[in-house]
């Protein structure tokens, strides 16, 4: 059976290699082979793995405590790491001297090329708990024998003199996981309601479909804003995090429910479902043993494609000051500093948190596209 429906190019490729594994491969194996051919999706997957590595290792990769502020070091330019000194490998940054301009009263910074601060890998720095469990103070990069005025601000500092690079890493932690948690909640709602809708049909289906239609015809941003504004300002970061997650997924489940319902509807007519029914399998067994495995891959693809919208939602809300709020750090919170364009014109590095947003969203889109193409290896 599988031989007939396998896409011809796959068969040809494998036959040309004298490889007959394709006839014995499992569904997931076939999907993996198909996905591997999708270069852009593979690269995107790798990029996303890096992002999630950052989520775990944010403290290790950070060079300064993200909350430590110092007004004396506000709005400092990025200090690029210079990897070579002449022809020898010796990473260093130039020391920066800050003083106040006597006329404009602005702080101005001057890099001093004669004063080189050596940058070391695996340097000791501020204390943190790795994975929230093990106390550690090892960091990927650091300045050797750092005195207070020896700074390493790879991406510069914000108005309060906090290190943007470290804050970006910690922001990644919130922005990338809020998407995952939210999508998991949306998926639960989508599976439940879409499944009920598609499997039972009838008036229940009509009702759920109308609810989805209504929710989809209302602009989401004002709705999210209204709901998020009700989150009390004195809540802790953790509580705020879950409140925002729930608010986003309350409206975000509709697309997933639509996909699930569509799959249920098309599978209900399949021969193998009828066969299972005739052999007297119970309803639960049909759903979980026969139907779910065959549309699992489609769900994974749809979930991946749902993530960018959630990341953008969180970033937008936080940017407006209605989502995550300081002391929490997320990409949107960091971008808040870029709201005043006149100020940003002088400090363009404050726009940098836009880069990970775009990269992550693009990567999820490409990976999702690849997964969707690979989801049906017999198609």
């Amino acid at each position, binding site marked *: 059976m599988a031989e007939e429906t396998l896409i011809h190019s796959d068969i040809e490729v494998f036959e040309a290699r004298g490889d007959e594994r394709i006839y014995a491969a499992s569904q997931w194996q076939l999907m993996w082979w198909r996905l591997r051919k999708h270069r852009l999706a593979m690269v995107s997957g790798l990029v996303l793995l890096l992002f999630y590595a950052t989520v775990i290792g944010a403290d290790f990769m950070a060079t300064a405590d993200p909350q430590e502020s110092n007004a004396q070091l506000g709005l400092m330019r990025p200090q690029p790491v210079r990897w070579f000194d002449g022809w020898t490998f010796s990473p260093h940054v130039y020391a920066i001297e800050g003083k106040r301009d006597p006329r404009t009263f602005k702080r101005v910074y001057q890099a001093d090329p004669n004063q080189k601060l050596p940058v070391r890998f695996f340097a000791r720095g501020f204390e943190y708990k790795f994975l929230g469990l093990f106390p550690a103070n090892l960091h990927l990069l650091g300045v050797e024998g750092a005195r207070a005025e020896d700074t390493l601000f790879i991406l510069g500092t914000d108005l309060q003199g906090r290190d943007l690079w470290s804050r970006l890493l910690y922001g990644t932690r919130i922005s990338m996981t809020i998407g995952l948690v939210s999508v998991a909640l949306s998926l639960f709602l989508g599976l439940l309601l879409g499944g009920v809708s598609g499997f039972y049909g009838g008036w229940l289906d009509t009702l759920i479909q109308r609810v989805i239609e*209504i929710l989809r*015809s209302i*602009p989401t941003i*004002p709705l999210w804003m209204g709901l998020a504004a009700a989150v009390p300002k004195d809540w802790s970061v953790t509580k705020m995090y879950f409140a925002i997650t729930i608010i986003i997924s309350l409206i975000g489940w509709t697309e997933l429910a639509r996909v699930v319902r569509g799959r249920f509807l098309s599978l209900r007519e399949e021969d193998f479902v009828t066969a299972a029914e005739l052999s007297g399998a119970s309803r639960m067994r049909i759903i979980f043993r026969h139907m779910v495995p065959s549309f699992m891959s489609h769900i994974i693809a749809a979930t991946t494609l749902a993530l960018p919208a959630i990341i953008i939602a969180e970033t937008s809300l936080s940017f407006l000051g209605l989502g995550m709020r300081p002391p929490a750090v997320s990409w949107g919170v960091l971008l808040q500093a870029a709201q005043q*364009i006149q100020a940003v014109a002088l400090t363009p590095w404050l*726009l940098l948190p836009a880069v990970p947003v775009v990269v992550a969203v693009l990567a999820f889109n490409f990976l999702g596209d690849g997964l969707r193409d690979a989801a049906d290896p017999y198609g």
Partner: protein
Amino acid sequence: MLVYLVRRFFLAVITVWAVSLISFAIIQLPPGDFVTAYIGQLQAMGTIVSQAESEALRMEYGLDRSFAVQYYKWVSRIFEGDFGIAMEYRRPVLEVIGDRLLLTAVLTFTSIMFTWILAIPIGIYSAVKQYSLGDYFFTFVGFLGLALPNFLLALVVLYIGFVFFNANVGGLFSPEYADAPYTWGKMLDLLNHLWLPSIILAVAGTAQLIRVLRANLLDELRKPYVITARAKGLAGWRIIMKYPLRVALNPLVSTIGYLLPLIVSGSIIISVVMSLPTVGPLLLKALLAQDMFLAGTIILLIGVMTVIGTFISDLLLAWIDPRIQLETM
């Protein structure tokens, strides 16, 4: 046709009702009732409010009654044209909103126009010249347009305008026209400012539409009737324009149902970034100040506006493509 119309109308009415329910829930969400907040506001300004007066206010809004009663009172007030008081401004909500809603509608409308004006020619080009340099370029731009949240795009455009052209590209009016009554000069000034935010708003929708149009047109172009037409010697452009394009355009019209909420959503946040005098900045300010009557009314009006727009597009759709009526039966 009539059955279809009635169905769409019925759905629109239910949606408006759902929007009103959600808006009212949002008004009710913050802790404490709004009379307490209102009195707090008054007292902060030095007005003394007696116990009896506050009780009277509570009675008037039915705050001692259930959610359903309060909702009923709120809706009946709206039917009388009374949307409540914007606390921060101490003026009726409608007065505060003024012509901002109209400007939001204008912005939304021009964005949709731009979406089509940009997407249709690019989509045709990408399909006809598949895998050409231009096709790859537009695919790339399209992906970027999808990935870049439109407020970021607005920020970048503002930044470029400010740094390289030394111009403030935000706002919808030049300073001299901002508070002036509507004249031809003001309208021209509006058009002069409108195109940039409209295009920024249109980018995401355009990117999606290009992909849809390209895929549809490619499907159609491979069909035998196109080959027949070509074999019979019909000119290249006429073949595309006469049949396949018309089939491929149908989904474009039907996507307006989700394009509209998308663009209205985007307009809120873009207006904040580019300081456009639409309801966006007002909504944000109201929410941050917990001025819930103003915020709830804005959410309600935006929702109703979207529903009406979708309803009109449904009618247009049924007129253009009669098959739609049968599909939803």
